[in-house]
């Protein structure tokens, strides 16, 4: 079964890197959607099947925290696992994002192997 992935980050460079990590990770992936802020991400989520979301926190228009709040409030979206990928790894932020329903957290900078490992954990758990 191919996984559909949504990458949310206002940095095009970072989105391109994450797409490359996913393509090298050995996951069977279908489409890799990209969004540059939380609002674009919500528009994609509401019109496409997505198996996992990777999201940054600091973004214009709608940030990662606001995105998580919207996803948690939407019964059609709240079961989609969200992995936060952010430069902010303070305990305050991590606790906040996990309490909003994030299923994992990767601090930038990260190695490709670290991102792959976290995604394996979330995708494996969602198949259980």
């Amino acid at each position, binding site marked *: 079964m191919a996984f559909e992935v949504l990458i949310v980050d206002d940095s095009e460079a970072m989105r391109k890197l994450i797409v490359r*990590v996913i393509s*090298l*990770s*050995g996951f069977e992936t279908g489409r890799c959607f990209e969004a540059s802020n939380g609002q674009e991400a919500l528009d994609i989520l509401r019109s496409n099947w997505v198996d996992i979301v990777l999201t940054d926190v600091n973004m214009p228009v709608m940030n990662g925290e606001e995105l998580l709040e919207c996803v948690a409030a939407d019964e059609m979206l709240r079961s989609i696992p969200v992995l936060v990928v952010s430069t902010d790894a303070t305990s305050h932020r991590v606790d906040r994002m996990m309490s909003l329903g994030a299923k994992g957290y990767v601090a930038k900078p990260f*190695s*490709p*192997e670290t991102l*792959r490992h976290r995604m394996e954990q979330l995708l494996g758990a969602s198949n259980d």
Partner: protein
Amino acid sequence: MNVVVGVGDCCVTSDPENVLITYALGSCVGLAVYDPVAHVGGLLHFMLPCAPPGSAQSGKSPWTYADSGIPMLFREAYEHGAKKSRLRVRAAGGAQIMDESGIFNIGQRNCVALRKILWKAGVMLAAEDMGGSQARTMRLEIASGRVLLRSPRDPGEKEL
């Protein structure tokens, strides 16, 4: 049969009787590749990140350097029948060991060089045990593909 891979050396084989073993991975890095379908395995022990200009003419083995040794390791594995998509790649070493000039960061540079070369080649590590301050011994069993590590302060072997 143990086949010893020396410092700045490499061995690639498909003989299931062979166990490739390399000692004294201090600041050096051991890189093991294994194709579980073709049963081809290789072990490289490199010392330094980059080959300086003219190193080919100086007689220094290309296996000494990450930037020459790693691509050659992969090419030899392919020549033995391995496929890139099936290769399981594991690395150990790159410890902070004082070198002769007293600079502590050769191990760190070796680790960074390895990661850069693999990233550019589109290869990800399946497992690693790098950094720290202990030397390691690494062996690759060709029959099973298992990589086992030993270090002075830890009892027994651990599988990577």
